[in-house]
């Protein structure tokens, strides 16, 4: 290759990863007046983003997780009027489903927790739950409705944000795999190099190969999508045991999690497995997941399933994403490790990350998400 073709382009920011997080970061960078390039070896949203459920949900696993998810949920609501139709944003709300009085106590704890923090919620008793979701099995104790939660279709959401970034001058380079990043340089596998004031590693499951030492583990999940049954389920439904499943840092687990798509299709999940790296459908786990779903929604039995697929979430040891400067290199910033909350927290991630790059104060404390929070012991896997 001649020197001319190896001429390096120079950017204020280069985002690695054209998934939802990378797309949000690119969009945010452009809004800050940065000259941006997005690079990805695959298609838009080809990684975790395409595999995920697309939920926008506030979670209270920890204060930091709550703050980030709530902030981001509000950003999604602000963005909503501008979203194109194919993003299929639907504010269907979430109902956390309680099977018994023990779980109802947890419902009330969540009600208190969210209530104090200004998140509108409503406790549903047995009857109210039955009328809200008639296809749930009878005899459940009740649940917590969070009306401001929503769902969307992630691949189109990522594309929407990237197109906005592009309209603002960003360059999107797909099919361009990255081999190395560091010291303000992004080296592509085809030999080209991009110069960057800031390199944003938003490569999800691929982040650790570009920033060695990141303790990101793949957490495999399964999803099933059905044919169209409009009105079969109206809210995203999650069992309270989901928290136990997402909580655990070891072992395989399934949890009832069902979501209505705007098309009327029903998305059924969820499962979590560590240390499994192949994409094949895992029959025993799939079976457990399906059985769990049928326990909560027996009427799923006759519904036609069209597709089953797997995906990998990028998980960190403390269940919080890595958003901020990488201590090992002043030019590298991380925006990764979002586990199952990538869609939800993508907008807030981008916002607080770019605030940090620009040296501005963020709307929420950034400390809990700083890559530097982990001692070198934790970070070096």
């Amino acid at each position, binding site marked *: 290759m001649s020197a001319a073709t190896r001429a390096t382009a120079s950017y204020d920011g280069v985002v690695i990863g054209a998934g939802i997080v990378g797309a949000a970061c690119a969009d945010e960078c452009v809004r800050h007046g940065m000259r941006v390039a997005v690079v990805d070896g695959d298609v838009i949203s080809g990684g975790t983003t395409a595999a995920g459920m697309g939920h926008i949900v506030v979670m209270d696993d920890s204060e930091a997780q709550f703050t980030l998810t709530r902030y981001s949920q509000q950003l999604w609501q602000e963005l909503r009027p501008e979203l194109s139709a194919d993003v299929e944003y639907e504010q269907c709300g979430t109902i956390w489903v309680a099977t018994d009085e023990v779980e109802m106590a947890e419902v009330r704890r969540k009600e208190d927790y969210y209530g104090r923090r200004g998140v509108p919620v409503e406790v549903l008793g047995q009857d109210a739950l039955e009328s809200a979701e008639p296809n749930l099995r009878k005899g459940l104790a009740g649940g917590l409705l969070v009306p401001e939660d929503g769902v969307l279709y992630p691949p189109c959401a990522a594309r929407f944000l990237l197109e906005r970034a592009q309209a603002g001058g960003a360059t999107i380079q797909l099919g361009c795999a990255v081999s190395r990043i560091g010291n303000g340089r992004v080296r592509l596998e085809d030999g080209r190099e991009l110069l960057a004031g800031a390199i944003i590693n938003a490569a999800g499951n691929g982040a650790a190969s570009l920033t060695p030492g990141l303790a990101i583990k793949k957490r495999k999940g399964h999803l099933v999508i059905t*044919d169209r*049954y409009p009105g079969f389920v109206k809210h995203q439904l999650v069992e309270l045991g989901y928290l136990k499943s997402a909580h655990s840092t070891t072992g395989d687990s399934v949890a009832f999690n069902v979501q209505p798509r705007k*098309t009327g299709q029903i998305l059924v999940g969820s499962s979590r497995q560590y240390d499994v790296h192949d994409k094949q459908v895992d029959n025993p786990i799939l079976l457990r997941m399906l059985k769990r779903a049928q326990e909560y929604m027996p009427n799923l039995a*006759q519904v*036609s399933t069209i597709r089953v697929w797997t995906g990998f979430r990028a998980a960190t040891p403390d269940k919080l994403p890595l958003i901020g400067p990488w201590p090992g290199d002043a030019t590298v910033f991380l925006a990764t490790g979002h586990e199952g909350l990538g869609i939800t927290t993508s907008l807030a991630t981008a916002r607080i990350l770019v605030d940090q790059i620009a040296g501005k104060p963020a709307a929420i404390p950034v400390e809990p998400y700083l890559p530097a929070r982990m001692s070198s012991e934790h970070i070096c896997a």
Partner: protein
Amino acid sequence: MTEQVIPDQVDLKVNGRSVSVPSGATVAVAIALAGAACRKSVGGEWRGPLCGMGICFECRAAIDGRPYCRSCQVLCRSGMEVMTDE
């Protein structure tokens, strides 16, 4: 064992209208005889059978309350109730 009489014609209902088909005919045929299309596409177009062998899913209709049955693969039975998207 009593001999089973196989009827020459089978009577069923398509969208509430009575239709009579030769024994062994498929529901797709009954729908066609009723002058109906099978389904409305996502974009609102009327659709009917394309492949005739159960792989295109264009001939779907609700049969005896079960939605999304491939009508070209289901034999008509006496008293069946078929509903298309009409």
